[in-house]
């Protein structure tokens, strides 16, 4: 069995003491930021990236992945205990989870979330191991035209399936693509949009963009309206579910896992869409549906399994095609490039230990989350109440030092401040920063593939339509856009994202 041989390779990498340590560190930091107020995974990963540049690539990526799914977990803890979803993917968990906490069943809600997530993570890891190789196999046959069309489709899908204004998201992608082109053009050697500033000759580091727009921008937004946090349950007891509880949650966990795994593969899908969809589905088909919103355990089990499954399977397009489906994946791709790894299907064949090591580490990380976090819940509860007005100056310091350490350049710090202003102003205008970051990472790659495709076709743009795979992907992108722009579906899409929130 090739699958088991591959998984064995993965275990050999993931179970080395050093990588276990980075995995543990990643999930710990991830959970921490998930429970701390006002700090998202994108900003944290950007903040920690400079630290990981010195690590071997596999350790760096294992740790970053750990932060990502650790943050999902921490986000659901805050959703259950204080009705404040730490991450957007745990918005629906708050609906029933917080009600359970008010009824004194906080421990049960937390363990349901943890066990559901662990089960979903295990299944999704297997799916990843099963489906990644054939997908990479197909992608290896792609030419530049297919790659260009794939990126177009990926970018379009990421905004079609995300919430918010579609047209503004597309404008943000274009702005990101343009900003990504700043720096020296690789083909002609012409410096572009650099204003003769030497620091811009190598382009803008993606860490600066991410920290400015997600780190600084988020802090300024949080300062508009400072929240106070009241923890409902200070002492958490009754962590262990009874046999009856387990029987109740089995079916929702299975459905949530299946739905989450499927939606996570879609670009733009990932954790958030999965959890919303799983909650709606469960509410529709459950016999207990009248109790939803009043502390139904199924309303915690299904979305929590789904968001974890979705978070795991969203690695599939990133690892096999080099296409980011959300800003965290975009940062992972940026981290790979800095580590000298060209993201794409060749990663699996050229760096099997990296590829399988990351996949297996996700399962190991999910295991850590269960065995460490349930006993450590007391610590997380205390972290919930760290006052934000003492936390954000510290976050700013880490951002500033992190950016300065990239090149020991004060210019980078100033540039981060500019992106902070831009991020805040754009978000006030209802323009989400995530699509800009996706475009920013893909900009130079897209231009390169476009250029190569056009050279091969002798300047004939029809190549994108004449090649069947490329045409299919462009077709899907166009259909996606048309469907969302249809008034009836547009209304439903808006409802789907607001109804439960």
């Amino acid at each position, binding site marked *: 069995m090739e699958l088991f041989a591959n998984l064995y390779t993965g275990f050999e990498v993931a179970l080395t003491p050093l990588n276990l340590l980075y995995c543990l560190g990643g999930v710990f930091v991830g959970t921490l930021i998930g429970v701390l107020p006002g700090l998202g995974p994108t900003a944290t990963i950007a903040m920690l990236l400079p630290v990981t540049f010195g690590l071997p690539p596999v350790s760096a990526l294992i740790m970053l992945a750990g932060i990502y799914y650790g943050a999902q977990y921490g986000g659901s803890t805050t959703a259950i205990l204080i009705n404040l979803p730490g991450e957007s993917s745990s918005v629906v968990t708050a609906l029933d989870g917080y009600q359970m906490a008010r009824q004194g069943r906080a421990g049960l809600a937390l363990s349901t979330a943890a066990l559901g997530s662990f089960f979903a993570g295990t299944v999704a890891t297997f799916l990843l191991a099963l489906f990644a190789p054939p997908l990479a196999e197909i992608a290896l046959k792609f030419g530049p035209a297919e790659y260009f069309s794939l990126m177009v489709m990926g970018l379009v899908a990421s905004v079609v399936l995300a919430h918010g204004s579609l047209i503004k998201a597309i404008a943000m992608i274009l702005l990101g693509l343009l900003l990504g082109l700043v720096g020296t053009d690789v083909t002609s050697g012409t410096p572009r949009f650099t204003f003769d500033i030497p620091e811009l000759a190598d382009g803008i580091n993606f860490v600066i963009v991410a920290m400015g727009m997600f780190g600084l921008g988020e*802090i300024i937004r949080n*300062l508009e309206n400072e929240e106070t946090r009241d923890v409902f349950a200070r002492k958490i007891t009754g962590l262990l579910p009874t046999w009856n509880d387990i029987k109740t949650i089995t079916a929702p966990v299975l459905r949530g896992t299946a739905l989450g795994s499927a939606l996570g593969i879609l670009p733009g899908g990932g954790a958030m869409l999965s959890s919303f969809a799983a909650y709606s589905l469960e509410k529709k088909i459950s016999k207990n549906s009248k109790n939803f919103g009043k502390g139904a355990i199924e309303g915690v089990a299904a979305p929590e399994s789904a968001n974890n499954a979705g978070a795991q399977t969203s690695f599939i397009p990133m690892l096999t095609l080099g296409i980011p489906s959300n800003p965290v994946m975009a940062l992972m791709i940026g981290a790979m490039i800095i580590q000298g790894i060209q993201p794409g299907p060749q990663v699996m064949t050229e760096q099997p230990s990296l590829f399988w090591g990351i996949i297996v580490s996700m399962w190991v990380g999910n295991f850590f989350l269960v065995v460490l976090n349930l006993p450590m819940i007391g610590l997380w509860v205390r972290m919930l109440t760290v006052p934000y007005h003492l936390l954000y*100056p510290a976050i*700013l310091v880490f951002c500033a*030092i992190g950016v300065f350490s990239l090149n020991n350049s004060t210019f980078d710090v100033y540039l981060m401040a500019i992106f902070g202003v831009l991020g805040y102003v754009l978000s006030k205008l209802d323009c989400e920063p995530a699509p800009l970051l996706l475009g920013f990472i893909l900009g130079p790659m897209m231009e390169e593939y476009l250029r190569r495709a056009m050279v091969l076709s002798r300047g004939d743009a029809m190549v994108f339509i004449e090649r069947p795979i490329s045409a299919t992907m462009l077709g899907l992108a166009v259909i996606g856009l048309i469907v969302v722009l249809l008034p009836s579906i547009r209304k439903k899409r808006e409802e789907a994202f607001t109804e439960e929130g």
Partner: protein
Amino acid sequence: MSGFGIRNQKDFYSGLLFIAFGVAFMWIAQNYNFGTPRRMGPAFFPIILSGILIAIGIAIAVRGVTVAEEPMRGFTLKGLVLVIVGTLLFGFLVRSAGVPIATAALVAVSAYASQRFNWKPTLVLAVGMAVFCTVVFIYALGLPMPVRGPWLGG
């Protein structure tokens, strides 16, 4: 604010912003070689992208004049200015005065943006962060950053 029939400020101003970015990128890109479709020059891709960005910007701005929505609110000038000034100050001080001073300055300036600002905990945080960052980043991780800048005789 809306003297000439802007019904949705968020759409209108974001549209203008996108148009401005599009025009700026296109304007600058014109100085580069456009090339041919077969041999794309450095201006080719940016000019196409900025062209689409301008078109979408116009569409968003037009929507801002025609479709009404709730006005923009809650803009925090204090938060924006203090966070940005603190960050710029860090950049200005980190070389000349060193990491501890720059860190303390950033903490002090940015903490003032909070409604719950209180000088005592802020002072403790500023000193604590300055010591922590110096020890962790410079002494433990060995990042090549100055502890004392030229201003302090370093």
